[in-house]
């Protein structure tokens, strides 16, 4: 990243923007799905410190009175207190602007790895005013603040795109499409009511029979309650609708990065920091035929723990491994089996015991001679590790299709995890809550009116807000759709 480019980026930030707002405060759960070692909730924006202060209180003799008073960078031990009396020990990392990834105030709250807890924290923070971040938003802020350069950001845009495309698909795959269907049904009902309200405005002179406001209010109330119920139920469920993660571990120079590049078909430097990943884990999206888009992560820092367990657990790589849905141990076939590989394998199994794991014998192109010779080498690795190794070459592409197919099979089978009828991204839950509240406000307006006409333009504002929220989950209802409903129901025209 050249200094020149950075300087120019910063100068231009006032004239450029992405499709997300850049100046409000966003929140997201930053750990992967599943029972990770710890969960991270990350905030970025002007209100980050004050919002974090609502749930986190530092403890200890040298603790500052408030997070706002922390200069620069600091890690603080303390307690997270949530409504309902939940209290857990936690650590807050405070990165004050501009010395943060986004150049805004960034707070990371680390708590013991309970997805329910992370969800509850994010929920409380967004209820307090933080906006649930969209995929890629932290990175977008990093780019537009000049923190990362163009090539990184362009690659990130690919990731955002993949996330967009896979968003509904993964929800459908993981949840049997239930949320999607539910939102669509609710949106259809709201659009119908909106059509009745819009007709009262736009068909002023027509002899049409408008709905009674009490009827519309009752329909909206029912939808609002339904949506609130779903959001409430979902709040009890762990997060599992996130993108599956495939984590690559291995000794230095075993070819993890080049394998990651080869698998994702990318020939550029690897992206850092997709929203939801930790600072020093490199990630890239990989689209599989059946399992959809998954995230490949290079857990480069992962190594057998030597120091205290606590220190090791702090490492981002270890968290990535703990949160992985599939683990790949990359061995260097050209270097032959190594004792370190066996230690690493053991450590991986310790860190994430139930995770599917495959040994990948990389760099097979470097093993001279014929196929038999290569087969011999990988057998040696398999024997040493007592695990079936898959032979690949990032350089020639050998074995990559097989590896993709294996990942696809693993993750496709994994996708509908049992016992969880309905689980939502925290952002989706927020959308449902907001949609329910807006629908309830529209119902309130209509219930108090003698005729739809009295409150039509105001109820329409609330209904449009509600539909916009649902649209983030199930696709937007457009004006044409509402007009279609109007003209299907009301006979008008000169």
């Amino acid at each position, binding site marked *: 990243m050249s200094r020149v480019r950075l300087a120019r980026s910063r100068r231009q930030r006032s004239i450029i923007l992405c499709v997300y707002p850049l100046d409000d405060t966003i929140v997201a759960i930053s750990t992967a799905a599943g029972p990770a070692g710890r969960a991270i909730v990350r905030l970025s924006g002007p209100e980050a410190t004050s919002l974090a202060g609502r749930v986190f209180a530092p403890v200890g003799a040298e603790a500052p009175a408030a997070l706002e008073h922390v200069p620069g960078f600091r890690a603080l031990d303390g307690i997270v207190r949530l409504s309902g009396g939940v209290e857990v020990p936690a650590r807050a990392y405070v990165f004050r602007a501009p010395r943060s990834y986004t150049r805004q105030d960034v707070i990371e709250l680390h708590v013991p790895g309970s997805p329910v807890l992370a969800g509850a924290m994010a929920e409380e923070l967004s209820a307090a005013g933080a906006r649930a971040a969209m995929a890629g938003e932290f990175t977008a802020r990093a780019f537009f603040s000049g923190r990362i350069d163009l090539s990184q950001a362009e690659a990130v845009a690919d990731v955002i795109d993949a996330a967009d495309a896979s968003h509904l698909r993964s929800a459908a795959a993981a949840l049997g499409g239930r949320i999607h269907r539910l939102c669509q049904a609710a949106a259809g009902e709201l659009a119908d009511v909106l059509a009745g309200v819009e007709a009262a405005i736009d068909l002023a002179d027509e002899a049409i029979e408008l709905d009674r406001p009490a009827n519309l209010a009752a329909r909206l109330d029912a939808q609002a309650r339904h949506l609130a119920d779903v959001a409430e139920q979902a709040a009890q469920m762990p997060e599992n609708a996130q993108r599956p993660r495939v984590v690559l571990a291995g000794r230095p120079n075993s070819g993890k990065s080049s394998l990651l590049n080869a698998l994702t078909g990318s020939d550029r430097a690897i992206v850092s920091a997709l929203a939801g990943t930790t600072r020093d884990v490199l990630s890239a999206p990989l689209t599989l035929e059946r399992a959809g888009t998954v995230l490949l992560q290079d857990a480069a820092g992962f190594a057998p723990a030597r120091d205290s367990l606590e220190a090791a657990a702090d490492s981002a790589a270890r968290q990535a491994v703990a949160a992985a849905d599939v683990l790949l141990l990359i061995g260097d076939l050209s270097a032959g089996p190594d004792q370190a590989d066996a230690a690493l394998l053991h450590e991986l199994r310790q860190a994430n015991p139930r995770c599917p794991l495959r040994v990948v014998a990389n760099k097979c192109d470097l093993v001279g001679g014929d196929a038999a010779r290569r087969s011999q080498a990988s057998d040696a690795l398999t024997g040493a590790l007592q695990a079936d190794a898959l032979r690949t070459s990032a350089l020639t592409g050998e074995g990559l299709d097989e590896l993709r197919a294996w990942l696809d099979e693993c993750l496709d089978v994994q996708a509908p995890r049992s016992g969880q009828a309905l689980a939502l991204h925290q952002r989706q839950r927020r959308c449902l809550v907001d949609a329910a509240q807006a629908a309830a406000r529209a119902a309130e307006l209509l219930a108090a009116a003698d005729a739809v006409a009295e409150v039509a*333009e105001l109820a329409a504002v609330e209904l449009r807000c509600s539909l916009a929220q649902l649209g983030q989950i199930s696709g937007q209802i457009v004006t044409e759709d509402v*007009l279609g409903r109007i003209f299907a129901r009301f006979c008008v025209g000169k």
Partner: protein
Amino acid sequence: MALDFDIVVIGGGHAGAEAAWAASGLSCATALVTLDASVIARMSCNPAIGGVGKGQIVREIDAMGGLMGLAADATGIQFRMLNRSKGAAVWGPRCQSDRHAYAAWVQRALGERKNLTILEGEATDVIVEDGHVAGVRIRPNSHANRVTGQHPQANSALEGGTDGESIDLRCRAVIVTAGTFLNGVMHLGERTWAGGRYDEPAATGLTASLASLGLEFGRLKTGTCARLDAATIDYDKCTRQDGDAEPEAFSFMTARLSVEQIPCWITWTNRDVHDAIRANFHRAPMYTGQIQSTGPRYCPSIETKIDRFADKDRHQIFLEREGRTTDWVYCNGISTSLPPDVQDFMIHHIAGLERARIIRYGYAIEYDYFPPTQLAAALEVKGVGGLYLAGQVNGTTGYEEAAAQGLLAGLNAALALRGDRPLVLRRDQAYIGVMIDDLVTKGVSEPYRMFTSRAEHRLSLRADNADRRLTPVGRSVGLVDDARWARHQAALEAVMAADTLLRNTRVAGKSLWETLRRPDADLAGVLALAGPDVRARFVQLLSEQPDAVNSLVIDGRYEGYREKEASALRHMQDLDRKLLPVDINYNAISHLRHEAREKLSACRPHSLGQALRISGITPADVTVLAVHLMGRNVKMDNL
């Protein structure tokens, strides 16, 4: 034989009239070419201007210095504010017009307009050289008095030519506003004939000329109702509908309307009529396959209404007098192309119309239009410099929609000749902006009509504040004259004084403005809280500039909801202000998806906001685009 102009407008309907008015107002030597100058600004369907959504458009046209509002005020015979029972945000001014007086008023205004020449004839070809408009070939009418207006050589040039000989008008921009005239075909029962309106010929050459420039075209359908003789209607059997006791004008320049109003009358269809129509579906061009093209869903013929809403046993009909001195009555609600004998039966079985004389039967018309996605946001055809399309040729319906496009096309043609950047109104700025963005971004599948539900910022795009939204815009491009500007400044001063008064007067820790922030807030009640000095000052402002100050009060009442409306859209507003360079090579942006490259190349959006509204373009695509432009140091104009 050739004549020189800056801009040539083809067509003299509501779009053509505004286009010619605007272009000449920006000091361009302008020609308006029409088949018949005596029917310029004719109302070919209902004799009314405005309505919900449409009325707001008329106010917007007026605020920018256009014609329509002034013409409607001068020639209206009944004025009503629609939706008066609802919130002020959705009030829609409407009037019944004297259609002859209206056309005559516009013709006089155009006839006296500096820089404008009106030529009678048929435009047959648009002449293009090197991808840019170079002229228009016309076939002048053979009768005399073919020229009105200013051009010194026009008369002699046309007189000098032999009958039937074409003349070239050299120009740098052409605005096509041909309405329903392009290859128009009328349907009345089994009978079909070529024509642009009932008794006017169609234009047959122009579609082919435009198609040869690469424009795609399609067919749309519309229709109108029978006209009756007023003297033969039994009004005792109808319900009277009067205009407002205190009529409100369209134009911000009309201080006070004093007009003797004429009532409309309401009657209804009935089962006998429905049965007769149903029994004749096999003779209805809409159902026999004689008419192939799409008509508007919101303006169906009576046969379509009876087919689609079989359970309704009556439909409302407004009997609208077409003028003070004419006997013609328009039957709003029963547009049809059924055969004359069915129309006879139908009319004569409606209460009050038993003995009505039919002056002209209802008919349908099919005509060529050019899918508007071929246009840039300035209404200029992409790939043909200087060629603008406006009005029904773009697939819209309605006088107001046509006029608004004509105004913008006229302004943009003139601005381009000046070398200025085009005027593109945003969706949060004007209904006109909503309409044009819808047209050029999404296209049409049926004739497009304005509805307030199309506007995301409905509570801000109001009839009462159109001058505050758009008069500065009209002034900056040069169409708003000094008188209008002075009136606007005076109104604005009153608004600012009233605003200061409301915000700075605090009662019990709350400003009057905050107290007002309720849709049902009572202004008198709010003022009663203030001291006598403040109250007196406010009442004075209100009496000096009642409309302007009331408009501010409406702002205040809606403020909470307007914020709500805007909060979800704030970002889109920002994106709409980011203008894209015209010469982007989307295919060279490697990170864009293939589909996105194709769609962006085809649409060539004006702004990042428009890009995001293209169907199939995702937020990620727009992010990639923004990142690309920033990375390459491309400066995006900040509107």
